[in-house]
């Protein structure tokens, strides 16, 4: 079969050791990050509340809640429902509007020493351009990258989500890219709720996306068995948390296989350092922790520490060497249909000659 990896695979459990020496630096396009750990949009608000638990400067990056052009109230409550190993949310992009975000949130984040990835959302192509243009008013060095959330209904196309159509997604990305300072990379955030995520990814990259964030939530729903109607005020909602990790890994794998040069900010179901490692091995250059922050506000730093230990145990000297490693480790033996090989001596010839067996099959009188 395939050649074993050069690094040393070890069991996930590890003894307590001092924090190991691994070069954790990474980059998303030309945005250099000191480590690969980020928060996910909408799971850390705009940083103030999370900063009570640890300094935001210790994160590789901080992705802000998606902001639209105007202030937005969001959807009716209930806005959340717990599901097995996950949750549904129906926030509806509540936010202050891009002007207040640029005037109040971004300066505060800069003062904290955070590397801010600003997430933007819109209901039309023009609005994406306008939001990005307003964002560009922030002083240089305030925004590390822009993440374009295209999991939004397009009011110009019967409310269909941009992320579900290659052309609409591309148009939204192109609008944002054009309005954003060329020194700032633009990441397109992709929805998993599509037939072919690779074609959406190609369209976004072709439209100017410098990287991809994958994945946004999976569309889901819970019906309250007490009231006999949907729990969420918005009826359906976005499923996130460990439950969706396999979907995130698969999406990253598929897109990295098709577009190995495109940096990916992996997100979806990361709870532990080994979860983060899976996304990295699949092709992510950095990883966002989302819903898990609700379970453990210190999760981003905990996951970072666990990831560092996991990389060291497996012989990686640099985090970047692990990016996409599983693809090369797998090699050509993807679907392992082996050709016939000579059997070892233990394999009985199909037509047994009866001699030398010392035992007749039928002599066994139980267990068969």
């Amino acid at each position, binding site marked *: 079969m395939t050649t074993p990896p050069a690094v040393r695979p070890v069991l996930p459990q590890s003894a307590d050791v001092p924090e190991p020496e691994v070069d954790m630096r990474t980059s998303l396009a030309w945005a250099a990050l000191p480590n690969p750990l980020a928060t996910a949009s909408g799971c850390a*608000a705009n940083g103030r509340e999370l900063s009570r638990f640890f300094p935001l400067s210790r994160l590789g990056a901080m992705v802000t809640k998606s902001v639209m052009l105007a202030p937005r*109230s969001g959807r009716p*409550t209930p806005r959340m429902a717990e599901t097995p190993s*996950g949750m549904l949310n129906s*926030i509806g992009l509540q936010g202050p509007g891009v002007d207040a975000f640029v005037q109040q949130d971004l300066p505060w984040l800069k003062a904290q020493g955070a590397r801010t990835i600003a997430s933007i959302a819109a209901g039309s192509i023009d609005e994406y351009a306008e939001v990005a243009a307003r964002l560009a008013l922030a002083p240089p060095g305030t925004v590390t990258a822009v993440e374009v959330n295209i999991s939004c209904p397009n009011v110009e196309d019967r409310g269909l989500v941009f992320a579900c159509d290659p052309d609409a997604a591309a148009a939204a990305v192109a609008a944002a890219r054009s309005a954003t300072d060329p020194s700032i990379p633009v990441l397109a955030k992709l929805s998993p709720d599509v037939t072919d995520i690779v074609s959406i990814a190609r369209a976004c990259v072709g439209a100017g996306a410098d990287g991809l964030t994958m994945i946004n939530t999976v569309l889901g729903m819970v019906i309250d068995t007490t009231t006999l109607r949907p729990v969420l005020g*918005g009826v359906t909602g976005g499923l996130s948390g460990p439950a969706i990790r396999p979907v995130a890994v698969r999406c990253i794998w598929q897109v990295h296989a098709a577009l190995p040069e495109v940096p990916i900010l992996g997100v979806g179901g990361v709870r532990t350092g080994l979860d983060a490692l899976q996304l990295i091995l699949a092709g992510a250059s950095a990883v966002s922790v989302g819903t898990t922050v609700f379970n453990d506000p*210190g999760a981003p730093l905990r996951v970072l520490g666990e990831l560092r230990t996991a990389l060291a145990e497996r012989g990686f000297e640099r985090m970047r060497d692990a990016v996409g490693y599983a693809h090369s480790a797998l090699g050509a033996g993807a679907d392992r249909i082996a050709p016939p090989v000579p059997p070892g001596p233990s394999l009985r010839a199909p037509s047994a000659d009866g001699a030398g067996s010392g035992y007749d099959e039928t002599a066994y009188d139980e267990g068969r």
Partner: protein
Amino acid sequence: MQVRGEALSVRRVGAYYALTLLAPGVAERFRPGHFVALAIGDESSSMLLRRSFSIYRCQERGVYGGTVEIVVSAHGPGTEWLASRRPHDPVDVVGPLGTPFALPREPASCTLVGGGYGSAPLFTLAERLRARGCRVDIVLGAATEERLFGVLEAKRMADSVTVTTDDGSLGTRGRVTDVLPRVMERAGTDAVYACGPMAMLRAVSDVAAGSGVPAQVAVEEAMACGIGVCMTCVLPVVGEDGVTRMVRSCTEGPVFRGDTVRWADVGTVPADCLGAPVAAGGH
């Protein structure tokens, strides 16, 4: 702050469980009206979200260090998990959280209203108020006698205690707001404090407003994070500028002025709310 605490004791009290947690650092920062958010299960639990509980009482210095006591109504998988903790079982604690009750700067006549387990934060509140020379009257209500919490404790610390139960099993048969006007009149109430179900808080706010008395109410909205990062726990609140905003009950609350909450519109987005109306949107 976040601390890996542990259960010290779980005590049955009527329909509830009083759970004492070792949680160094939380007790020292506590004020009445603050809550804690507790992680449910271990790493293998399918229940990802924390559960929130008003803090009943704290001890900064005990044999074990700082402790936090909460009152749990076990009705779902998370609260039942908590009720089944044994001494020294680990429980991850985030707290104290939220905006607590504001205390008067000068002595005032305060009426405290608690519904069900909602009375939990009112006893430490009463102690703090009395320490400021305030008159304290307490009204406690519940569906049944065993769903009341702290009646005897209230009697030890209040100028008067009035009890109501829906089924009449203890005190007046009826609701807290049936007796509240009379209590407020007798006490010459300057301020109302309340904690309980949303419907009770709305009713208490209306009674207080009817008497021109300010009410502070501790709300209970479904929370995913409890720390202000997720935006799930919002409710419509009128600001100083008269504009209605969807505010987070875990940070701007749980304690709100009763006359700022758009009670009739909880669970909706009022058309005159900042940023409304929202088309079916992203997430």
